């Protein structure tokens, strides 16, 4: 038996909250070594003393619950919306064979026949499925790289992540969720503005309007707020645009910010 064995045993007992007593052999060894006895007494005193803990401030709770609520909004917007009404077969037939739809179908058929007969010879070779799958693979890798960079602690690296996001087709839901989460929580204004710039090149933002709208309304940073409004006014649905304008008009906004948003709105109408 050595000093080390006894100390290891004592530390392990304390770690596992065990009250086991040393074996008689160990006890004799401890008694015969006053220095070891002193070391063990120190360990016990340190371990069994009061464990004073400090409380974090309210800021931590506020920040966490804001972040969680953002994440929940993103998650909710990802879930498929429930179908509001399921038509019976009879209703479906009645609906689609109404004179209005029959006329539209006939017009469409006529246009199709015209187009089929007068189409020019195909100028491009059909897309190679191998090439298509390679493009998809590259896009998926770019998205993964972007997500990884977006989670770095340095703002410069996160900006690189945003740049990579722009190179992907912005259809990866995980990437879009990360961008949305950061848009609401990132400490760097530059990163948030870069995300907004990237979202401008997304094909559609309709799935994320529920997240973007409250962000635009509650944003404290004027620059970010203007860009959020620009994004919604340029790419949002009519409902989202109207909702945004109603909310903004009822808010006490800085006059310059309000003017600027109104100008963006006027331009988006053109």
């Amino acid at each position: 038996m050595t000093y080390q064995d006894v100390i290891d045993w004592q530390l392990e007992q304390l770690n596992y909250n065990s009250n086991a007593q040393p074996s008689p052999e160990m006890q004799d060894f401890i008694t015969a070594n006053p220095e070891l006895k002193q070391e063990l007494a120190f360990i016990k005193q340190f371990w069994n003393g009061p464990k004073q803990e400090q409380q974090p401030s309210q800021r931590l709770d506020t920040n966490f619950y804001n972040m969680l609520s953002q994440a929940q909004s993103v998650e909710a917007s990802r879930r498929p919306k429930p179908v509001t009404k399921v038509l019976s077969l009879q209703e479906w037939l009645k609906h689609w064979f109404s004179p209005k739809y029959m006329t539209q179908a006939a017009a469409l058929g006529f246009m199709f026949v015209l187009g089929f007969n007068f189409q020019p010879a195909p100028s491009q070779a059909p897309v190679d499925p191998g090439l298509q799958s390679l493009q998809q693979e590259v896009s998926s890798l770019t998205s993964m790289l972007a997500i990884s960079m977006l989670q770095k602690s340095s703002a410069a690296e996160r900006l690189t992540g945003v740049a990579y996001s722009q190179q992907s087709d912005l259809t990866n839901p995980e990437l879009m969720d990360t961008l949305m989460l950061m848009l609401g929580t990132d400490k760097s204004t530059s990163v948030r503005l870069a995300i907004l710039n990237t979202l401008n090149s997304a094909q559609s933002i309709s799935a994320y309007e529920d997240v973007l709208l409250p962000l635009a309304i509650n944003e404290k940073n004027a620059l970010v707020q203007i860009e959020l409004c620009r994004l919604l006014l340029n790419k949002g649905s009519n409902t989202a645009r109207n909702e945004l304008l109603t909310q903004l008009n009822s808010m006490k906004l800085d006059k310059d910010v309000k003017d600027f948003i109104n100008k963006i709105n006027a331009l988006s109408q053109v």
Partner: protein
Amino acid sequence: MMDEKDIMLRVQAGELDKLAVLFERYKVKLFNYFLRMGNNRSLSEDLVQETFMKVLAYRTSFNGKSSFSSWLYGIARNTAADHHRKTQHARHHDDIDEHELETTHTLGETIEGSQQQAMFEKSLAGISAEHREIIILSRFQQLNYQDIASLLDCNLNTLKSKMRNAISKLHEQYNKLSGEVNL
């Protein structure tokens, strides 16, 4: 009380509100972990927040094989290491200087009539970050040996040896400070 692993698996399945349960259970512990590792209050709060952001972002990587606490502390350690690497404040992870001793040792100062406890805290801050962390994880965060070994990526025997060395350094530091106080 619901098992932490189950709660985390539910978070993973999309029940994000369950993350609040884990946050409430760990926020004070994590905050004190970062404080004891030598960070100030404001930074410690930021690090707790960032840790939970990463828990959310990496939720799919939790496989349930390890305990939730060991997975969480793994993220917390990486978060702090990333932060200190980026801000070039390597000293936070080495020896804490006098100014920081004062800051971190408000812990000890708050304990009225427990000079010895304050001395323990001060001694803890005076040893290397590596030794300090092992003691903090075991004594204050109450992680068991298996969890700490998996967190530090070492086997149990190595951990025991590291723990013994850490305690020995703590005792040395304690004796040194006691000598200074008695002078």
